[in-house]
């Protein structure tokens, strides 16, 4: 029971971190049809900025998070303008090549600027230690990650389902040419959702720095996990991504606890099984 409970909490927290990072990828992939392998690199940049702000500049945790999110968005704007603009609508192979190239560059630069060592984001005292739930105590940081994940999911759901921007976004996802013909400024929708996606990636990178340690090869190591989550959930679907994160986080964490010697064997086995049964993802729609 004890083991089950700690596995469940860890899996839930891990799934939520995955969700915060990969939901942006899911939205941009559903909207712009770009296979963006550089998404993990943006999460890594967020982690690095937060670590730099907290350790070298001595800022507080909240300020470091804010700086990480805004800094990453600012870094991503020229990359989007100069490079991503040219691969919208290009064949998948071209997109893969371009985004792998961007990832390699970011890894190389991060390695040069920050060195190959692990970076940590020091937690404020309020998030350290453990909270007593009466029958069990759990790490506050895990709780914080879970709450943040749920808050992001709720806020995105509200923004997409209830606001005017969400209506335009959904229209552009369904049929960009038609939406543009009806007067939706699709390029603004694209730019805003790209910025939101990058910002969420950076936030997730900081939030998950305890679970997914920040180092130069972060971008390559976890990129696959993020892609897997998006594809299992179905590109562009928030409930799908949430479900995929919880299922895959659960499988991965359980595998690590109970059969650590098998590594990620069961994770990838599950992914293959799910995609073979649902080729469009858990919540994917037929095109």
């Amino acid at each position, binding site marked *: 029971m004890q083991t089950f409970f700690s596995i469940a909490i860890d899996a839930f927290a891990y799934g939520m971190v995955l969700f915060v990072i990969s939901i942006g990828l899911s939205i941009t992939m559903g909207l712009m049809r770009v296979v963006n392998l550089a998404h993990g690199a943006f999460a890594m940049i967020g982690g690095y900025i937060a670590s730099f702000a907290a350790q070298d500049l001595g800022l507080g945790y909240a300020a470091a998070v804010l700086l990480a999110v805004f800094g990453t968005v600012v870094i991503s704007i020229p990359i989007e303008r100069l490079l991503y603009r040219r691969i919208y609508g290009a064949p998948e192979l071209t997109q893969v090549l371009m985004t792998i190239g961007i990832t*390699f560059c970011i890894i190389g630069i991060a390695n040069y600027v920050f060195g190959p060592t692990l970076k940590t984001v020091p937690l404020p005292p309020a998030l350290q230690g453990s909270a007593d739930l009466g029958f069990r105590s759990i790490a506050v940081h895990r709780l914080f990650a879970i709450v943040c994940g749920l808050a992001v999911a709720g806020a995105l759901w509200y923004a997409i389902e209830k606001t005017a921007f969400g209506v335009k976004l959904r229209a552009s996802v369904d049929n960009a040419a038609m939406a543009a013909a009806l007067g939706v400024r699709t390029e603004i929708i694209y730019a805003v959702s790209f910025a939101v996606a990058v910002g969420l990636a950076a936030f997730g990178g900081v939030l998950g720095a305890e679970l997914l340690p920040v180092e130069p090869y972060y971008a390559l190591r976890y990129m696959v996990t993020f892609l897997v989550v998006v*594809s299992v959930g179905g590109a562009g679907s928030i409930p799908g991504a949430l479900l995929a994160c919880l299922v895959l986080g659960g499988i991965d964490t359980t595998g690590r606890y109970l059969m650590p010697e098998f590594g990620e064997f069961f994770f990838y086995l599950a992914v293959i099984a799910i995609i073979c049964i649902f080729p*469009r993802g858990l919540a994917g729609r037929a095109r």
Partner: protein
Amino acid sequence: MNTETVATTARQNRTIGRDLIGIGAIIAAAAIGYLLFPDNLALLTRIIAIALLVLSLDLVTGYCGVATLGHAALFGSGAYAAGIAAAHYGITDPLLMTLAGILCGAIAGLVCGLIILRAHGLPQLVLSISLIYLFHEFANKASSWTGGSDGLSGISPDPLFGRFEFDLWGQTAYVFGVVLLLAVFILLRFLVRSPFGMLCRGIKEDPLRIMAMGASPKIALIKMYVISGAVAGVGGALNAISTQVVGLDSLSFTQSAESLVMLVLGGTGSLFGALTGTVVFMLFEDYVSAANPFHWLTMVGALLIAVVLFAPKGLYGTAAAFVTGRLEKRT
């Protein structure tokens, strides 16, 4: 003889001429490599092994339009098959080891093809990535057979035909590799121009129409995957024979991604493109990582971005388009 047959024979003559030029170019490049880097034949042999992997990737990606980031699974299976045959079963004849590599590569191709072809687009990519990790973890776990993360050692191939020993300088391995590459290249030229090769190109363009014509895209693609596996298996076996050790990195995601990068760098859908991309990328990587190990990843990334922006058809594709453009202008 009417004009149409004249035109076809002329075109046939031209393609056969291009084949001969290609074979000549490979032999010339091999000889130049031998003269330029007599001390570094190991690198050249590795380039040949990877070239076989990239050729096999070109068969499924360039000719059939299947996007995969897990093609090293076929290469690594071939390498481990050749290595295990030598280290555990005492089959140390290099030709038999190559045969083991071909067989195992083809089987891995069948398995991967059956799974990867179930989806399209992003899920297809993710399936291929999951497969390569699955193969990697499996090889890591079955350490009594594969040596796990220490790598499989104890491979000592017999002299080729009982006469040419695989020496420290790697001359035998290099010549063996060049001959293998030439044989595979000639066979593949026949394959991609055969009706079957045309069918695969048709499937890449428009699978629905191929189905309407009465052919089954799925069966054709799986056949192509098996052939591709055999070619990758040759490369893997060559790698095992020449380095006499098989590491987990031959089954890695990085190896798969790099081979895709090399293919797109050279140009998809052409055997020459695959060869050009491999040679350029491997020499570039070797030179840059030796000159500046800190920045080589950045430079490789910049090279990729530059190729996408300025030579979207790949180096060979862009050069070929330029040459044909000039020729057409002249006539």
